[in-house]
């Protein structure tokens, strides 16, 4: 019964995402494969991971978990249901002072259990006019903790126009989710070099069209 409710809620979320955004996955430089991966994406909206989740084939979707802030996903019962049971998010306490568990260890153990992760390395939603904020170091530490896991850059286009900051009703617009070539940390590569390379790889997937913002 609970399982059925969770599946139904997942289908409703996916159906709604498709109705509003007609979202299409563009597997440009990698194929959808069943292996532990970290999909790292640009972050403009609470709906970002839903779009990635929607374009994944169902078999991959079942084992792919978003990494999200515990402060947002645990405050209300409905959000808790979606965060815990539907999306099965790996919840991270974003405040280092109150944190009880190491976020990297939490993500690594989810990967060890066979899951893939959706990660937003900017750390927070990008409300600026820049296409992409500087990356936090989590991606680098996770890549070093589990060097065999592929890091796949994923560019989400247009969702920021569907529901800009401060608006409550989404407008329907076509969105695309583009998957780039997987990366991993090179021998001896330091943190800044790796994060710079990952950021460039992600920006390289953004379409160059005027009026995209």
């Amino acid at each position, binding site marked *: 019964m609970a399982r059925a409710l969770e599946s139904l809620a997942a289908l409703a979320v996916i159906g709604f995402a498709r109705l509003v955004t*007609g979202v299409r996955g563009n597997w440009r430089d990698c194929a959808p494969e069943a292996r532990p991966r970290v999909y790292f994406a640009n972050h403009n909206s609470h709906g970002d991971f839903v779009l990635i989740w929607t374009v994944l084939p169902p078999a991959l979707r079942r084992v792919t978990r978003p990494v999200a802030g515990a402060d947002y996903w645990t405050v209300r019962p409905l959000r808790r249901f979606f965060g815990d049971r539907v999306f099965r998010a790996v919840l991270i306490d974003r405040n280092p002072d109150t944190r009880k568990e190491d976020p990297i260890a939490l993500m690594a153990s989810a990967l060890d259990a066979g899951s893939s992760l959706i990660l937003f390395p900017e750390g927070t939603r990008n409300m600026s006019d820049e296409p992409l904020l500087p990356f936090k170091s989590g991606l680098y530490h996770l890549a070093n903790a589990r060097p065999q896991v592929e890091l796949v850059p994923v560019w989400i286009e247009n969702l920021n*126009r569907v529901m800009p900051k401060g*608006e409550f009703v989404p*407008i*329907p*617009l*076509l969105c695309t989710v583009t998957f780039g070539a997987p990366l991993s940390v090179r021998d001896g590569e330091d943190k800044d070099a790796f994060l710079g390379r990952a950021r460039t790889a992600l920006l390289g997937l953004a379409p160059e*069209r005027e*009026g995209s913002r």
Partner: protein
Amino acid sequence: MTATEQTLALFGGIAVILVVASAIGFVLQRRYAAAGPNAVIENLNSRIKSWWVMVIAIGIAFAFGKAGVIALFGFASFTALREFVTLLSTRRSDHLALVIAFFVILPAQYYFIWVEWYGLYSIFIPVYAFLLLPIIAAARGDTKAFMPRVAEVQWALMICVFCVSHVPALLTLHIPGYEGRQLLLIAFLVLVVQSSDVLQYVWGKLLGRRKIAPLLSPSKTVEGFVGGVLSATAIGAALWWITPFSPWQAAAMALVINLMGFFGGLVMSAIKRDRGVKDWGQLIEGHGGMLDRLDSVIFAAPVFFHATRYWWAV
């Protein structure tokens, strides 16, 4: 024949044509499979597939009568508007105007057609939306590129909602001696427009030499245009028995539909070129978007509606 018998005969005929077309496509694909992928044959087969989808969707809508047709074209408008607005250079401050366009103006337009309120649905978007949306945009206080933004939103509504809604609006016409058959007017319009698209493509592939609009649409040729429009006009004349028109009148109407459809296709190509895209969207994998399927219907529908209303309806 009764209206139902005519409808069944028409759909039966279309189904036979599509079965033959699918069989030809299948044989061509098998024969040339050894020579590697063939773009022309793949294009043909994907067109045939999208006609099947279109015919089945329209068939289901017809089975539900007026409600089905309004729901189908309302959905088409929604999808088309979603594609069109995606390419606009609107800003954050246009959000409310776009919310109103999608969730108030679009449903209202189809509601006015449902209640057959001709006096309102024929001016609602060109007058009231035209006045309301710039007021909302101005109230937000963002003056950057104000004129282009307001004009683009108005264009989106005119193309995707106003023009498309004139297809189901054909059901509201009262034509003496043609009661209960208005669905067939929709079938006439869609069949003539689609056959014109196809025949222009076929004549262009067979005889096409001189490009007719090289800057807009490099694949369109003078030979394709003339051959396609004339043969689709002949098809329109041959379909006179499903319309309130005589054969010559049906030919004249089909000619008007085909010319509007052709020029509508050029206008929509110009917009796509300007925005640097090949297709409006990807509704079905590889088949383009809703607007790629509807572009010629969009320009033909209001003109066909008003010509029919002026000369035949009471």
